[in-house]
């Protein structure tokens, strides 16, 4: 394939990945920013979203779009509720102590993963996309008669992949509006700045925590529902998103939403482009190297604020 179309295909693939990654990582970043909890079980909320999407879509009859829309609404709600419940019953009991929450969320990770294995089983199952038409993309080249348009072999995307990108942008704008324009967002930001002072001002910090943890889980689940018509629901699928989300959050700065989005685009696009041109392994090496460099030279992340 020629360089131009090749690069365009790589960027498209990278953009889809960046979109899903941004949703997943924003959830992780939000939880850390507000609660100072490193949620190791985040990838499992992602997995649960995908598995529930399959379950809902296969129980709702009618056209595929109906099942998908139902999954898009119900799966994040269910996962969010489960995450909030995990916060109330587990994280609150260990007083959000940093070390103990890590151990506790590792426990949640294994419980969710194994319960899924025991009930849903080890198979990978597909969810049918609501619409999916192949869009061949043209490319321009200088020919004998000047600029010509042609259709390179393989340069294509699908309408569904474009939808994923658009949907992720819309949801991220929604999260931004929630944080900066609403009362609950104000409460979250106040809690993030100074937990004790927020408590002194009568903010129900515990309820804010449960909401944030639920929201984080719901965002991961939403990312998964969007990706599951492209990939498939599988009980081990939470591993990669967890690792990549951590990479994104560390590079972007823990707790910084704009940083997370920028880092997700950076990692998603570089992963797409490097794995197309070189090898997927090199893309992972590059991402990990970037984390190491950020940790050495700018430990607070690209957009993070130095702790006072």
């Amino acid at each position, binding site marked *: *394939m020629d360089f131009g179309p*090749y690069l365009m*295909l*790589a960027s498209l*693939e990278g953009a889809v*990945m960046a979109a899903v990654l941004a949703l997943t990582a924003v959830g992780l970043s939000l939880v850390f920013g507000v609660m100072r909890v490193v949620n190791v079980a985040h990838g499992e909320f992602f997995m649960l979203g995908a598995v529930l999407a399959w379950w809902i879509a296969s129980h709702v009859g009618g056209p595929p779009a109906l099942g998908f829309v139902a999954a898009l609404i119900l799966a994040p709600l269910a996962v969010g509720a489960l995450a909030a419940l995990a916060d109330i019953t587990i994280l609150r*009991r*260990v007083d959000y102590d940093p070390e*103990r929450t890590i*151990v*506790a969320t590792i426990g949640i990770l294994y419980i969710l993963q194994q319960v899924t*294995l025991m009930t849903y*089983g*080890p*198979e*990978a199952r*597909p969810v*049918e996309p609501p619409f*999916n038409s*192949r869009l*061949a993309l043209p490319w321009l080249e200088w020919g004998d008669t000047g600029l010509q348009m042609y259709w390179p*072999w*393989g340069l*294509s995307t*699908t309408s569904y992949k474009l939808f994923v990108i658009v949907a992720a942008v819309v949801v991220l704008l929604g999260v931004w509006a929630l944080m900066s324009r609403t009362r609950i967002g104000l409460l979250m930001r106040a809690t993030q700045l100074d937990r004790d002072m927020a408590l002194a001002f009568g903010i129900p910090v515990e309820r804010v925590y449960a909401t944030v943890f639920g929201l984080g889980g719901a965002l991961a689940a939403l990312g998964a529902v969007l990706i599951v018509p*492209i*990939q*498939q629901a*599988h009980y*081990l*699928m939470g591993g*990669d998103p967890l690792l990549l989300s951590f990479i994104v959050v560390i590079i972007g700065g823990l707790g910084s939403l704009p940083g997370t989005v920028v880092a997700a685009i950076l990692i998603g696009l570089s992963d*797409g482009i490097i*794995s*197309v041109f070189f090898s*997927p*392994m090199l893309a992972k090496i590059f991402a990990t190297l970037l984390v190491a460099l950020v940790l050495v030279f700018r430990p607070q992340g690209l957009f993070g604020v130095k702790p006072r």
Partner: protein
Amino acid sequence: MTIKTTGTTRRGALKTLAGGAAAATSLPFWARYAQAQTSEPIRIGFQMHRTGIGAAYGRWYGRTTEAATRLINEAGGINGRPVEIVIEDDGTDPKRGAEVVEKFATQLKCDIGYGTLFSHVVAGSAPRAGELKLPYFIVSEGHQLASGGLNRYTIQPGITDVKSQVQAMAPFVAANLGKKVTMIYPDYAFGHDHRDFFSEAIAAQGGEVVAKLAIPPTETSFTKYFPKIPRETEVIYHVMVGPAVLTFVKELGEFFGPSRPEMFGFIDSLEAVDIASPGLEFLEGSYFWEGMPRYAQPDQTSFDKFYREQVGVDANGASVADPKDVSTYAHMFACWETLYVIKAGMEAAGYQSFKDRPALIEAVEAMTDMAQSNEHPQGPKRFNGKTHQVFGQQYISQVTDGKLLVKHTTSLEDGFYPDETDYTKMPF
């Protein structure tokens, strides 16, 4: 509270380990006791891919094993003793595989080990079976056994190895589909067998492999690999495994759109997947290797019919109980046939106890031709005692109206190659 819990868990784990070690050391005494009673069941340790990337195969290997064991027991067992299958999950993981083999030999008092499919798990487990002198019947397709890379205790009597399969296929590909081939295969031992032996075999037919795309078996998204397919490609040769095979084939279709090259795939790329799945329409007219035809053919043998009924598979290769539960039909026959080879071997060796294990190996090594029958429903086979490898016929099917229709059946001779080792010269 958490700290206390961690402490208890660790102590508990240590206790279990100590208990296991104690049990292992005391084992020879009561193991001898158990063997003194000849009405005790023959215990076959079934190393099963219940979880991990091989889970779909594991489920169907399990069902096939269950059906064959039931029939063997209904017919009086082996040497008058019932057969008991002892299942251990290996997570499709080589390290765990070696532990499972060890558990069969030392803790679970199994007479033999059996049933491993994924070649990297075989590579991890077989050396341990050799050290523990546990007869180890693999159902794997890997060429590592026949190449001399394993040991005398490892035997593959139910399924042809990849080298033989691709050697038998290559002439058909070169003659009917094209000579410039791009290969897409999983990046581990099994895929490397395909890469090496198909490259050799197609070169012998005057063709060439123009590109080789190795994909990690745990990969979940594939479009990024496809631009490496050169424009001159006439045939795509694809073989993929793992939970994401459906995504793989779908993205392949999306990549090419309406102007795809010819395609020759190993059915592994679609094992346990319904060919009528949305997004797979582009496969119409493409070719697949099948170890055994998934769809009941117009000239279906009575043996295939019997085998399907007993395992619970319908004419479309799916579970009788759930038409969406598609089987791994092209591979799982080998479990059935391997169990009947074990039965024949144990009967020929007069197998009674662990001390007869070498005699069992020798009895299987002495086997040659196996006729197509209810015991061997896939087709006639010839076993090579020197390389511990069986050779069978292969099927090439074309997707026709969303079903696989057999177009060509290779002969046993198409798959023969010179011996690369002689295990019978290796001491027990």
